[in-house]
């Protein structure tokens, strides 16, 4: 029998605890600092207050950025839900020439560095489309986000389809249901939770994205991370940055937590 000695177990446990502490300490630091009363957050925190949260809620620039982020994430998620599900159905249910290439093409936007995707889209918008009179504007930002969000929905839906019983669809067809009826009453209910889980991940991925946003946001449009970036070098904005960062942490982590719950509940059944 393989067993680890007590000492090894303790050592492994200590390493694991240290790694988790290191992973969460910086995030908790930012969250704690958002309640730091000091103008330029110093460590350790001497007095706590809500005044930076109040200031942030009053700031039009931050509220505008929050609205842009939500709108972009919703748009990108909607596109990703449609494209990701279609691609998952195609790749899971059919075999065809070039299947691996299609798979790779969908993963590519998150496998290549964000700056490559960003610079490539920026180049298309500014040096190809603009000279011929097409201004993509705000839509360009949503297009950029949707491109790397597709894979989130695709992965979740494809994995679920793989675990579903294909006989159910055959049975539905045999009993006279049309393609659309079968999809609506059998296939879609089967992967509905994976669809939702993928959508939540896509939303979270888009909401805190920065690199592609830098290169695809039109002038004057700021997402919440872009607002952070533009204010990061200014020491007197430090305290507001802590608040915005805390908002981003919470708004991105909650959908991911829910998405994991959705996926787990189904695999438990």
């Amino acid at each position: 029998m393989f067993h680890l000695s007590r000492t090894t177990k303790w050592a492994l446990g200590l390493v694991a605890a240290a790694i988790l502490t290191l992973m969460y300490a910086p995030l908790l630091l930012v969250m704690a600092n958002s309640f730091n009363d000091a103008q330029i957050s110093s460590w350790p925190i001497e007095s706590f207050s809500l005044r930076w949260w109040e200031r942030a809620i009053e700031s039009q620039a931050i509220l505008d950025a929050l609205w842009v982020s939500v709108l972009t994430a919703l748009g990108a998620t909607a596109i990703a839900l449609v494209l990701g599900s279609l691609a998952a159905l195609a790749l899971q249910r059919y075999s065809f020439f070039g299947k691996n290439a299609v798979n790779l093409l969908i993963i590519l936007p998150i496998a290549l560095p964000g700056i490559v995707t960003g610079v490539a889209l920026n180049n298309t918008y500014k040096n190809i489309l603009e000279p011929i009179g097409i201004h993509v504007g705000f839509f360009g930002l949503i297009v950029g986000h949707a491109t790397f969000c597709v894979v989130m929905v695709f992965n979740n839906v494809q994995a679920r389809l793989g675990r579903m019983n294909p006989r159910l669809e055959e049975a539905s067809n045999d009993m006279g249901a049309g393609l659309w009826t079968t999809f609506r009453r059998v296939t879609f209910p089967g992967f509905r939770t994976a669809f939702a889980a993928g959508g939540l991940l896509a939303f979270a991925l888009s909401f805190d994205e920065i690199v592609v946003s830098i290169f695809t946001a039109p002038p004057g449009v700021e997402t919440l991370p872009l607002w952070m970036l533009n204010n990061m070098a200014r020491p007197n904005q430090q305290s507001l940055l802590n608040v915005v960062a805390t908002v981003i942490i919470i708004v991105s982590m909650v959908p991911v937590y829910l998405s994991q719950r959705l996926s787990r509940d189904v695999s438990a059944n």
Partner: protein
Amino acid sequence: MHDMRRPTAHRLSTALHARPRLRLYGLLSLPLLWMFGVYLVSLAMLLVTAFWTTDPFTSKVIPGFTTRNFENILTTSSYLNTAGRTVGIAFLVTLLCAVFALPLGIFMAKVASARWRNFLAMAITLPLWAGYLVKVFAMRISFGENGPVNWLLDPFGLSGPGYGLPAVVLTLTYLWFPFMALPVYTAIRQIPPNLFDAASDLGAGTWRVIRTVVLPLLMPAMIAGSVFTFSLSMGDFIGTQFVGAKVQMLGTVINQNVNLNPPLAAALSVIPIVAVGLYLFAVRRTGALKEL
């Protein structure tokens, strides 16, 4: 009865039912149109732009064909040094992620109880989603002059690395660690327990089991994780900007040239594309790409 009222829809459904290929094309057309039309065409146009020139006065791009941008990169030592530094940092970050992921994965899969295991799996996934910029910001505060790292080390008479190359490596490791930790943990769980038993029954000690049984079986997962840690490090410029002091990476130089000299930025972007491409090609035969 239901279908009789909608004859066109009915005919379409019947036609599609009889022709699975048509169904496949129907499903594939939209996603492929998007990924080709938006993404691949943009990547291709980026490569084309790398051969164009810029008007030095207006910063407007001029279509044409010249290899001058690439010659410029290959003969300028600062570009070459930056490229070399970037690849080096990407490898170092990948190595550090793997070194930390192994004990964590073994602890989660072999020591922790089922309850803890699920909790820990969630705990290492969540920070992945906390936002790249948020984490860079957190590291910037941590390594700052009056930040918590120095505050912790001060009683021991030590001080943190401050902003610079070590801070860049640590920050990138912090950023991409979950990409390595998750696949490694999943892979350790998937190794049949009786392999561990067989190895130790035959007399192998703990380290020997890890070295000769666990590590070889983990390679595909580590490589899958390393694709992300390597590729994401190759493209970083924001982390470097905020914790790197004067350190420059490829992303820094690309970002500087996007508006001033787009063709040069495009030519520089070819370096991470080629590096990641070579990396994917090198690891393709291990079968790891299926795990992405």
